């Protein structure tokens, strides 16, 4: 997990338990605009190469992909899935947020295509901009790339689904992962999401569309969970954080609801995964995590996400092991 409260699952839990609130910052890219005072959550610093065990593939990653891959790697290492399951039997069920290509990548390319009349010119774009563009840009903007890069790093080769761009889509990914384990379609599922909602263009979109309530601020974030049958986890002597007894998504006509929003910022697609992961860890902690349970969240796509997580009780149930 990587959130505005901490660069790991443990750090995030600890910060939440301690009552911390994300530090906020304004965006330089929006200075001088109507959004000059708009705040986003600041993110903790971390060394991605160190967390991922090398620089392999980092050059292909957008900010969201980087967060997602680090979170996925943390979960996979914690559950030791690579050592315990054939890659073909591990599923990947994930979600990503709105497109958030780096302005640093895009603006020079566009600059090359401004004509004498001061307007964008397709001819100059074809003639000059493409030549000046790093071919890797495509990999940074395709929506499925963050989870796909994670599949390559973790060696996951099984069934998969990737959704986008809001909370309800991540809820669907988590639900499909849970079902895939329950039905035996996979032996183990990596499920989660990453979002970079603090990207300047996304902030403009969110404000313009009225998707942020008063006092809310956008945040980047990512969380992945490993789900597997209880029996397998026990057999392999793995630590079991919690049991997922039920999970559901349903249409809602109510307002959006996100218990993480005020302290962590709204990380949209990442939020259901962060919430579920915190809920599982909450059970594992002696004094729990206040305000996390019950797992309930309703996003801007008006899909309500509910999950029942509890302490390990029934060995037939699926359990979240990382």
């Amino acid at each position, binding site marked *: 997990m990587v959130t505005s409260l901490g660069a790991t699952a443990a750090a995030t839990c600890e910060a939440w338990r301690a009552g911390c609130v994300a530090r906020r910052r304004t965006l330089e890219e929006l200075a001088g605009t109507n959004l000059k005072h708009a705040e986003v959550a600041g993110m903790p610093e971390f060394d991605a190469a160190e967390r991922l065990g090398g620089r392999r593939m980092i050059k292909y990653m957008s900010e969201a992909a980087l967060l997602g891959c680090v979170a996925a790697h943390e979960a996979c290492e914690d559950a030791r899935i690579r050592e315990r399951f054939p890659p073909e039997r591990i599923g990947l069920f994930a979600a990503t947020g709105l497109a958030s290509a780096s302005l640093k990548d895009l603006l020079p390319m566009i600059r090359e295509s401004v004509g004498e009349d001061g307007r964008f010119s397709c001819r100059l774009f074809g003639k000059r901009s493409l030549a000046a563009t790093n*071919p890797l840009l495509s990999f940074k903007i395709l929506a499925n790339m963050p989870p796909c890069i994670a*599949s390559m790093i973790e060696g996951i080769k099984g069934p*998969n689904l990737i*959704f*986008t761009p809001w909370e*309800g889509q991540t809820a669907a990914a988590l639900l499909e992962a849970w079902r895939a384990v329950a039905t035996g379609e996979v032996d183990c599922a990596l499920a989660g999401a990453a979002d970079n909602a603090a990207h300047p263009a996304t902030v403009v979109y969110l404000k313009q569309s009225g998707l942020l309530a008063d006092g809310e601020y956008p945040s980047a974030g990512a969380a992945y969970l490993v789900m597997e049958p209880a029996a397998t986890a026990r057999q392999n002597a793995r630590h079991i954080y919690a049991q997922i007894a039920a999970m559901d998504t349903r249409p809602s006509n109510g307002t959006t609801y996100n218990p993480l929003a005020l302290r962590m910022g709204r990380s949209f697609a990442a939020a259901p995964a962060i919430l579920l992961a915190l809920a599982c860890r909450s059970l594992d902690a002696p004094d729990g995590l206040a305000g996390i349970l019950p797992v309930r969240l309703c996003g801007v796509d008006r899909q309500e996400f509910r999950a029942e997580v509890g302490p390990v009780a029934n060995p037939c149930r699926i359990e979240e092991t990382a």
Partner: protein
Amino acid sequence: MRRVAITGFGVVSPIGVGREAFWDALEEGQSGIGPITRFDCSTFDVQLAGEVKEPLELPETVARVAAEDPKVGFAYAACAAALTGAGIERLGPGTLLHLGVSLEIFNLEKAVCNGKPDFKTIAERSLSGVEGPLQIPLDTGASLICDSFGRPDRALTNCSACAAGAQAIGHGFRSIRAGLCEAAVCGGFDSMINPLGVGGFQLLGALTTDNARGPSACRPFDAARSGAVLGEGAAVFVLEPLEKAVAEGKQVLAEVCGYGSTLDAYSLSAPDPDGDGAARSMMAALEDAAIGPDAIAHINAHGTGTRLNDEIEAAAVRRVFAGVWEHIPVSATKSVTGHLIAAAGAVEVGACLLPLVRGLMPPNPSLDRVAQGCELAHVMGKAAPFEGEYALSNSFGFGGQNATLVLRKFDGRN
């Protein structure tokens, strides 16, 4: 487990809008590929695409968005046709909407203000309403469909690149089969025919620059193939429990009876050279359908026309269908539609309906000489009669996502 019927099919494609026009063109091997007209591509190396030429009848709210993001209009029109075909007026409880799409449109013209790329000015203009929104989220197609036709239990937007449409159908199929919903409206829509879309794929070296070949530039499995051609459009299906559809007297176009999805976990831009992910995807779909390789009587290949894909796919097909592949005709309809990216898998399921409904397998009209390593029982020249029961459709995506669907002919007796 319940059997799953296709009761509605709507399509918007470079070779025709509406299923009859689409099937007619496929049967004739008519290509929809030609010079790009959407923007001035005269300085691009890539100058061909499969564009949707026909105007669509869209409600004002949809037309407004489609003016900026054409794929949204394709999704709406295909969905409306599919629902009409299935005799469904509204989405509601017990229904699922699941559509695949790949990439948000980036309007580069909007990005230039006062002679430079000026994000602050762009943001100001957008916030003040002078310009439209900075982003058109990928769920916009599904949202507009829900606004018009009602809210299903779940509205999902799948972004699994070239496998997205097939995954959406596979997920819809599994949901009906498991009794999780009573109708699944699923498919894919896409258009990358814009400067950044075409330019991005050109940079990756995935598209042919053999512009002189015009309509026959996309040449899956041909010795002279030199890359894919982008296409655009949408295909949407209505899936329902077979028993219910028959009881209600609905026309059943075919059954969906198997689905598999895998990951290569190999490379972002290139398929696994062993074709392992592709082969496992096909095998998973066959196993899901509870049939052996010898039951398949037609394959619609992913067949992009790129050097890498075609050879690897052909090898994977030969491995999965060892001993019988010489007798399984293979079509590659991207030769006439171009590569519709997230819509490709859905449009190609629509192409698989041609043999299952009309009894004819579409030809690969640009295949003159089969490339070494691409040996399969290709349908060359003209449409060939279909004799059998099952068809299989492959979709393999950037990022290493693979999806395969198995369809079955339904004649009321089986």
